[in-house]
């Protein structure tokens, strides 16, 4: 009886073994299905414009990838789906939708929303569920301070905005001494205001005015009057486009003058220049990307020019760094999946950590905290209502003009 039972068990095991051998592996099964990428987007509310920039380039990438048959996952092409929800610029809702995307829609990866604040919220959820998330519009290092193995950002740290700029401005204005800093009391604008202030002090400059203004401020007269009294050589203002337009106009109204006026990230955006007209001329800024660069690399856009021309043909306007960084995020994700040969979240996350690639947007290689490694970022200036790149020297297409 025992021997019959043993033989039966053996036969069953043999049959099972044959059956398992005939079946595709779990990885292969996974590769056969579409890859789902989740995206909580602020399509309505105050961040709607920025979210639309993300949506435009992600859909451009999606069309190109799927037209080519999909992403190559271990030799099999998988089509890609983008599952997106509007979180109405409400951080709490962004968290709820990130959770829904992971648990209900079963997305494989996430693309994070615009801004450091909302990125941090979504990244916390993604880390909890061990889902890789790529941030394309978050540059505050505080977002990346939680040692998450699943969060990677294409923007390099804010610090790259300050030191090269101070060095460049000192070369152009050797008498540069008195600096006034006015920043919006909000995650990214506050971090940049504090960053430039610290860097300027470290460089021996006299930061005689260093203040933040509250979100919702409708008048900068008091701050600007105080700045005017100090006769600044350099005025540095941070905020969102509507704040910067108002501040620049009030500077003109109140007669606040300086040879160098920097606004972050105003001149990087076309709407800033359109909203100010001639008042935008002379304003300097930093940007993480500009179309004057000429990078080559992996992905659906092999050169900066190919991305730029395709974008202009589609949108009838120039892309800014948000467009480029977010497009690069998708190129990065595709590259990581292809290198991993799998859509397993942990394997892709490991591949992301090992990234060392060149793209149309520039090099992408991550620091241990998941941020793209620091590099000298383009310093730009509006001249005749057009953006000129002043530095680094290998991509410059204009010389700095001091404001008279």
């Amino acid at each position, binding site marked *: 009886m025992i021997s019959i039972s043993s033989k039966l068990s053996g036969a069953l095991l043999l049959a099972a073994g044959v059956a398992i051998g005939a079946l595709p592996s779990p990885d292969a099964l996974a590769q056969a299905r579409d890859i789902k990428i989740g995206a909580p987007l602020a399509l*309505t*509310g*105050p*961040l*709607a*414009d920025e979210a*639309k920039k993300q949506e435009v380039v992600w859909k451009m990438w999606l069309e190109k990838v799927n037209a080519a048959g999909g992403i190559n996952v271990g030799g099999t092409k998988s089509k890609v789906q983008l599952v997106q929800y509007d979180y109405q610029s409400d951080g709490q809702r962004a968290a709820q939708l990130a959770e829904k995307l992971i648990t209900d829609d079963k997305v494989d990866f996430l693309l994070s929303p615009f801004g450091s604040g909302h990125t941090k919220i979504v990244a916390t959820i993604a880390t909890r569920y061990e889902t890789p998330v790529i941030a394309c519009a978050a540059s505050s290092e505080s977002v990346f301070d939680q040692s998450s193995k699943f969060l990677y950002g294409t923007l390099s740290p804010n610090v790259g905005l300050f030191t090269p700029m101070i060095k460049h401005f000192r070369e152009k204005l050797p008498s540069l001494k008195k600096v006034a800093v*006015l920043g919006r*009391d909000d995650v990214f604008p506050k971090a940049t205001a504090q960053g430039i202030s610290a860097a300027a002090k470290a460089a021996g400059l006299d930061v005689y005015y260093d*203040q*933040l*203004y*509250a979100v*919702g*401020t*409708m*008048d*900068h*007269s*008091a*701050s600007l*009057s*105080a700045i005017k*009294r100090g006769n600044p050589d350099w005025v540095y203002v941070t905020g*969102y*486009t*509507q704040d910067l*337009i*108002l501040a620049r*106009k*009030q500077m*003109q*109204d*109140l*007669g606040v003058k300086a040879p160098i006026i920097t606004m972050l990230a105003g001149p990087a955006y076309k*709407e*800033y220049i*359109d*909203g*100010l*007209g*001639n*008042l935008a001329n002379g304003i300097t800024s930093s940007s993480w990307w500009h179309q004057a660069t000429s990078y080559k690399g992996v992905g659906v856009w092999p050169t900066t020019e190919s991305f730029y021309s395709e974008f202009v043909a589609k949108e009838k306007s120039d892309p800014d760094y948000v467009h480029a960084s977010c497009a690069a995020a998708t190129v990065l994700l595709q590259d990581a999946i292809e290198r991993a040969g799998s859509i397993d979240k942990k394997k892709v996350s490991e591949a992301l950590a090992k990234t060392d690639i060149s793209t149309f947007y520039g090099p992408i290689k991550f620091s241990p905290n998941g941020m793209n490694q620091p590099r000298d970022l383009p310093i730009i200036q509006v001249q005749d209502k057009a953006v000129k790149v002043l530095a680094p020297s290998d991509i410059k297409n204009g010389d700095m003009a001091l404001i008279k």
Partner: protein
Amino acid sequence: MDYLQTLVNGIVLGTLYACLAVGFSLVWGVLNVINMLHGSLIIFGGYLTYFAWHSYGIHPLLALPAVSLLMFAIGYLTQLTMINRVVNQPVLTTLTLTFGLDLILYNFMTVYYTATPRRVTLDLGVVDLGGVVIPFDRLLGMALALILTGILYLMMKRSKIGRAIVAVRMDSAAAALMGIKVNSIYAITFGIGSLMAGATGAIFAMVYPVTTNLSGAYLGKAFVVCVVGGLGSVQGALVGGIVLGIIESFAGQFFGPQHALTVGFLLMLVLLVVRPTGLTGVKGYE
């Protein structure tokens, strides 16, 4: 001279605040409706003005009457067809309705116009009064704000419609018995509130960027001005606006711009405790 400049900055800013609050105050005082739509109506007026200037070259001052009348019609119809149905319900019901309408208008504008800040780039220069500088567009805004609130004040005091609005405000049942068509007066009142929002939008288009991002800031400011000045009166909105403007201006100078708004809100809280009828102490349009 610095203090004088700060004072002038505050007065000019305050009249702009009065301008944005007076329509809100009227609707709240007469209809007992907290009009959550008010900020978006100002923005909508701003967009109409901006596109009249941008697309057809119409100066904002010329566009202002047409924009205001159009906004009156929109407000009148909104009240007549929707808000009148619930106007006698508890204030939370009308607040919820106007909140819903605000979501629709706000998101319509964000989708249709995008939230991209736009500006009427006229840059009219400044007026220099012995070293005290006033931007001409703000001065124009201040003058228009004073004229509009003045007209509204006179209308409420002298015209038949104004007296009817006051009568409805005091006792709607008695007003109805006197032959006043209460629903029509409600609609006219809401229409005037919207007209003032539209006019404010036209003025603000010359001073501030036009973007839906500012809708909430305008609504919040209208709240504070009404509480500070006294709810439901033209003079209350004017006094509240100017006081708030001056306080924010000096607070920005003494405590830093980060705390200017906080001081304004603190003033509101103090007044709610010690003088709930606001600085003017006037209740309604008597």
